[in-house]
C-alpha cells in the first residue's frame, strides 16, 4: 500500500514536470494556489519564496532547457 503511494506520487510529480514544460501557463496556476496554501498554514518563508519564484518564473528557451546557445550559432 505504502509502495503504491510512493510510486503514485513519483509518477504524478513527473507528470506535473512535463505539464510545466509543455504548458507552463497551466502549472503556474497550480503553483500560485500552492503558494496561497503555504501562506495560510504559515510555512517557512524560504519555502514560500521558492514557490513564489516558481509561480512567476518566465518561460525559458534554448534546447532541452540548455541556455548555452549564443547568437552566432554555437551550442556551448
Amino acid at each position: 500500500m505504502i509502495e503504491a503511494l510512493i510510486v503514485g506520487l513519483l509518477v504524478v510529480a513527473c507528470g506535473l514536470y512535463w505539464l510545466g514544460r509543455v504548458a507552463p501557463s497551466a502549472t503556474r496556476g497550480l503553483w500560485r494556489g500552492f503558494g496561497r496554501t503555504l501562506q495560510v498554514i504559515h510555512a517557512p518563508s524560504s519555502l514560500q519564496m521558492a514557490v513564489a519564484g516558481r509561480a512567476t518564473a518566465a518561460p525559458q528557451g534554448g534546447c532541452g532547457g540548455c541556455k548555452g546557445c549564443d547568437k552566432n550559432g554555437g551550442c556551448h
Partner: protein
Amino acid sequence: MVETLPLRAALVGNPNCGKTSLFNQLTGSRQKVANYAGVTVERKEGRLTTPAGRAVRLLDLPGAYSLEATSPDEAVTRDVCAGRYRGEAAPELLICVLDATNLRLHLRFGLEVCRLGRPTIIVLNMLDAAEKEGLKIDLPRLAAELGTPVVGVVAIRKNGAADLLALLDNPPVMPPVLREADGGDIHATVRRLLTECVTRPAVASEALEDRLDRWVLHPVWGLVILLALMFVMFQAVFSWAQPPMDAIESGMTAFGELIRSLLPAGLIRSLLVDGILAGAGTVVVFLPQILILFLWILVLEESGYLPRAAFLLDRVMASAGLSGRSFIPLLSSFACAVPGIMATRTIQNPRDRLVTILIAPLMTCSARLPVYALLISAFIPKRLVGGVFNQQGLVLFGLYMVGIGSGLAVAWAMKRREVTTEHPLLMELPAYRLPSLRDLVLGLWQRAVIFLSRVGTIIVTLSVLLWALSSFPAPPAGATGAPIDYSLAGRLGHLMLPLFAPIGFTWQICVALIPGLAAREVAVSALATVYAVGGSETDAASQLTPILSSQWSLATALSLLAWYVYAPQCFATLAVIRRETGGWKVVAQTAGYLFGLAYLASFLTWRIALALGWGPS
C-alpha cells in the same frame, strides 16, 4: 559624490573580436538575455561593479563590421549606438572592442564609432596574442590620435580586464576628439594610424599561415584533408569510445543487480530497474561518443579550420542555391538544430533564411547519435572494410552524408524555380589558433553537464511516465497474453501499428516514437523501458542491444535509421522555428515535409531490404 543611477554602457565591435568573452569576463553570471522589441535579435545585458563601487549596466550589442547595416543584427547595433532605437535609452558610454591582432580591419570600425560623437573607450583585446606575434602597439599615441582613452585587455584571462574596470571608475564624459588629418578618408586614417602607432616585425608566423593555407585550401589536397578529417572523426566516435562505454555499461548492470538484491520484487523495484535504470542508464552509455564528437567539433572550431571548410564547399552550397552565409547555421545544426536556426538571423535574404531554417533539421544533431549508435552497434557487424575502416564508422559517416545530401537536394528543389540572385559570401578566414586546453576541457565539461542534466530531467521523468503507462492497467484476471499488451502503452502501440506496419516498425517502436518527440535520444530510453517492462524478470535491464538484435530484423533496423534521418522528432526545434518565423505556417511546412520524407524513406528502405532478403525470417 554618491552615484545613484548605474552607468549605461554598451559593448560594440566587429564579429570575432572577442566581445562576448569580454562581456562574460566583466559581468560573469549576472546576465539577462531577451529579444529586442519587434525583431528576433538577442539583447544581452549584464551588471557589474567597478573597483570603486560604481554600478554599470552593460549592454552587449550584436557584432558588426560597419554602422552601415546590412543585416537585422547590424541595424540594431547602428540604431542603439546612435540613440535612435525605440524603447532603448541611448548608452552613456560606448566601449568599442578591437582585436589587437587584426587592427587593419577593426580600427576602421573603431573610427566609425568614434565619429558618432559619444563618450567612447577603445579596448584592444587579445593584447597577449599581439605581443606574441611581435606586434608593438603604442597605446598612448593611439589614445592621443583618437582623442579618447585606449586600454588593452586579455578577455580570456582571469583579471585580464583590470585596466578597463579601473577606467570605468572614471569614465570619459566627453566625446572623442579625433585628429582628422586625412581629408575625412577613413581608410587613409587607418593606414596612417597603423604606421604611426604599430610596429610589426617581419615575422615568421605569417609564413606559417601561408604554408598551412597552401595545403588546407588546395583544390585537391584541401578536399583530401577535409575528407580525411571527417572520416577519422566518425571512426573515432566508435573506436575510441568503446572502453569508457563498456565501463559505464557494466557499472549500470552492477547497479541494477544491487537494487535487485536489496529490494523485494514489487512496484518500486520495477520502477527503479525497468523504468529509470533501463531508460536513463541506456542513454548515459552514449556520453563518451557524444564527447568525442564534440571534441572534434571544438578543435576544428577553435583552430579556425571551419571557415576554410566552408570555403572548400562553397561551390557545392552555391549549386544548391544556398549562400555561403548558410554554412555556419547549418554547421551548428550538427550540435543542435535550435542554435542553428537562431543563427540564421545573420542571413540577409529572407528567402535564403527560410530555406536554411527548413533544411537545418536535416543536419544530424547530436541527439540522433544515441539512436544511430544503438542501432548500428546492434545490427552492423564490427568488421574492417578495406583493412582500415571500421564498418560501423562507415555506416555512421554514411548516415551523416545522407542527411547533408538530402538537405542540399531539398534546398535545390525549393530554389529551382527562382530567379538567381547574387548570394554574397565575403567571409573572413580568421588566423589559425592552437586550441587552448582550458577551452577544450571547459567546452567538453559544459557538454557533459548539458547531456547529463537532460538525462536527469527529461529522460528520467519520461521513463517514469512511460513505465507507468506500460505497467498499468494490470492485465485482467485470467489473461493469457503478455501483461504489457493490456497496458495503456501496449494498447496505444497496437493502435498505431497499422499506420507504421507498412514501413516495418514493431508496436514497441510506435510506443517509443511518442515520447521521442520530446527529444530524439528519448526514443532509446523509451525502447529500453518498453522492452524491460515487457520482458521476463531474468532479462538484464540495461542490455538493450542484444534484445534488439534478437527481436528485430535488419530491415526493421534500417527502416528506423532512415526514419530518424528525416523525422522532425523534436519539439524544441519546432518551437524555435515558430519563434524565429513568428507563425505556425513554416512550422507546419517543416513538420509536414519532414514527416512525409521520413515515411517515404523508411518505406523504400523497408521494401528494398525485404527484397534483399534482410526481412524477418
